[in-house]
């Protein structure tokens, strides 16, 4: 099986540790993962801000870069949802606008082979214990697109529960949005910050050292709020926890 890592532009630029963790984790599980260098951005920010037509070339580019692989793995619930949920919709809209089936046909092949990381681990590889070691207290925030668009459900929690040394504590109001929302964070920053602050306070109330999620965009917002509020917590992507072992613990 030819597996491609779709790291996402945010992770590539700002969170290379998450990318290295995915590579380390998948390699440990016997997957030969490739990083196609042509990859850029899925177009989610464009699409969700109202620039669907500007997102189309990015979606076509994604399809060109990843089309030949058997599986495309991404450590981002929202970028995964962009491909799986919104690429088909972009094709439908183009068709409704009288632009034919070309876009739909171009994007169709990548849709079913795109997996969010925890889906790939649990559904494709069939593993729930990835042999990780992470001696910390962790609370898990299910990010909205992972939760409601992809329906990740129990997968991330099942994976975390199997991690040696990890104590998982429940996050109050876990299913409430953290307030990131892409350009929402800037366009409606007051409401976004109020939501983020409430999320951080809930996380603090658990007494955990680490807030874990499967999407660094949300963690960028939550983490930025955490340090500003001077909490003792830190945000960590689930890939970095799952990649951590007794021999090579996470930094």
């Amino acid at each position, binding site marked *: 099986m030819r597996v491609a890592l779709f790291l996402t532009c945010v992770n590539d*630029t700002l969170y290379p540790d998450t990318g290295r963790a995915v*590579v380390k984790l998948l390699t440990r599980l016997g997957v030969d993962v490739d990083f196609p260098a042509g990859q850029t951005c899925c177009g989610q920010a464009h699409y969700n801000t109202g620039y669907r037509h500007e997102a189309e070339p990015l979606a076509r580019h994604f399809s060109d870069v990843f089309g030949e692989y058997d599986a495309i793995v991404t450590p981002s619930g929202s970028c995964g949802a962009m491909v799986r949920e919104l690429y088909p919709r972009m094709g439908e809209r183009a068709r409704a606008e009288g632009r034919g089936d070309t876009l739909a046909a171009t994007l169709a092949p990548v849709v079913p082979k795109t997996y969010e990381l925890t889906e790939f681990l649990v559904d494709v590889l069939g593993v729930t214990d990835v042999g990780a070691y992470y001696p910390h207290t962790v609370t898990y925030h299910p990010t909205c697109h992972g939760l409601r668009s992809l329906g990740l459900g129990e997968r991330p929690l099942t994976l975390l529960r199997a991690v040696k040394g990890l104590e998982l504590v429940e996050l109050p109001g876990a299913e409430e949005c953290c307030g990131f929302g892409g350009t929402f964070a800037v366009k*409606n920053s007051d409401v*976004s910050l109020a939501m983020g602050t409430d999320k951080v306070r809930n996380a603090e109330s658990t007494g955990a050292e680490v807030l874990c999620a499967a999407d660094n965009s949300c963690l960028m917002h939550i983490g930025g709020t955490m340090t*500003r509020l001077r909490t003792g917590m830190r945000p960590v992507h689930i890939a970095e926890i799952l990649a951590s072992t007794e021999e090579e613990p996470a930094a």
Partner: protein
Amino acid sequence: MSGTFVGMPAFPEAAREAVRDTTLRGNLRHATHTIRAKRAKAVAEVEDWAELREAGKRIKDHTLRHLDRYLEQVEAAVTAAGGVVHWAADAEEANRIVTDLVKATGESEVVKVKSMATQEIGLNEALEAAGVRAYETDLAELIVQLGKDRPSHILVPAIHRNRGEIREIFTREMSEWGRPAPEGLTDTPAELAEAARLHLREKFLRAKVGVSGANFVVAETGTLVVVESEGNGRMCLTLPETLISVVGIEKIVPTWRDLEVFLQTLPRSSTAERMNPYTSTWTGTTDGDGPRVFHLVLLDNGRTDTLADEVGRQALRCIRCSACLNVCPVYERAGGHAYGSVYPGPIGAILSPQLRGTDSEIDASLPYASSLCGACYEVCPVAIDIPEVLVHLRERVVQGGPATRAGNRVVLRPAKGHAAERAAMRAAQWAFTRPGVLRAGQRMASRTRRFHPRTLPGPGRAWSAGRDLPRVPAEPFRDWWQRTRGGKDGAAE
């Protein structure tokens, strides 16, 4: 606080005030979290909820698809049952029809059943201008009216008020409108409810004209349906001699069998009740029973325009349950007034810019009043994909394009104020279709990282005002991958 929504600032500005109002935040948090939990429990009891939701969606879609036929069926059935049907293209026409009908009775006051349609058209203000006083009889609407306030929730329009504030409003204002509040009124719910009962009772017994909306109109028999909890609706629908009902054209269901679906999903979604306490149905007029004269005013007011939009039309499925408001994290913090419409929350953010257009500052800002978290879609009993419509309307705001206004196809121009964003999005698109350009940008960011400011200028300030910026790493992932061949060269860290 003024009683109308005219001249509202854009959503982010209005929300900024609300976010800082600690009393409002506390009131909303308490109320929405309570009803949210109750709804979840009431819905979980129903084994075939998913099927009911799908059925509701299909019934509404079918009716909207054949609305021309069903509207004529309603007109024929209501007329045959002794009612008079009027057609109103917009708010102004509807207000004129109702005002003329009330004037013709010679009365100068009406009692009202809680109704979103009459709020939408500003009927109370129109009647006031014509010298007719409209008394709201729903408890929360009464609180809003006495407080010269605006509604902030579809189902619980005074949700932004707590008991203490309500006691204060009753004590201060009731005497202006009729029977004063009892001496020594406290803020216990039972005492507040009793004060409202006594105040309203004299209005019910005196009124000759009632004004209502309707939750549903059953086309096969021309029957109107109102569901409510307090019994004030039953009073207004049965005691007056004349009843005038203003109903949006999307409220039709074809048959009684179809109605059954919504009578299960609406109460559980809105008040978390298995069944609402009062369900009133009436078909035209009946001798010796209830009003002798019945008028039905069918209201368009932007609905036909909305129906013409194939993505946006799903908003017309809405049965006004408020589940999306109660679950919305943005509504919980911004409050209902920030939405500048009688329809607040997620449904308001997709309904107002369609019914009113996106010309005003507030209407152009509403599609952005969401983090697209999807909680609204999840709880909607008629499966309105609110995030999908929000994004569709964002596109209309920034790109313009075809739309329908007052029945005419028009091509909208992009809204002002998005030029810089549009340029940035186009630049990003250019870079993102050229991996080499992206890489050069990433390297530049990494190499200059020591000089990055802690706070951002311009629009970026909205980010750094409340959150720290992430630190740019020494090298982007792609450079590490190339340098180490994906870690195979041993340089794992």
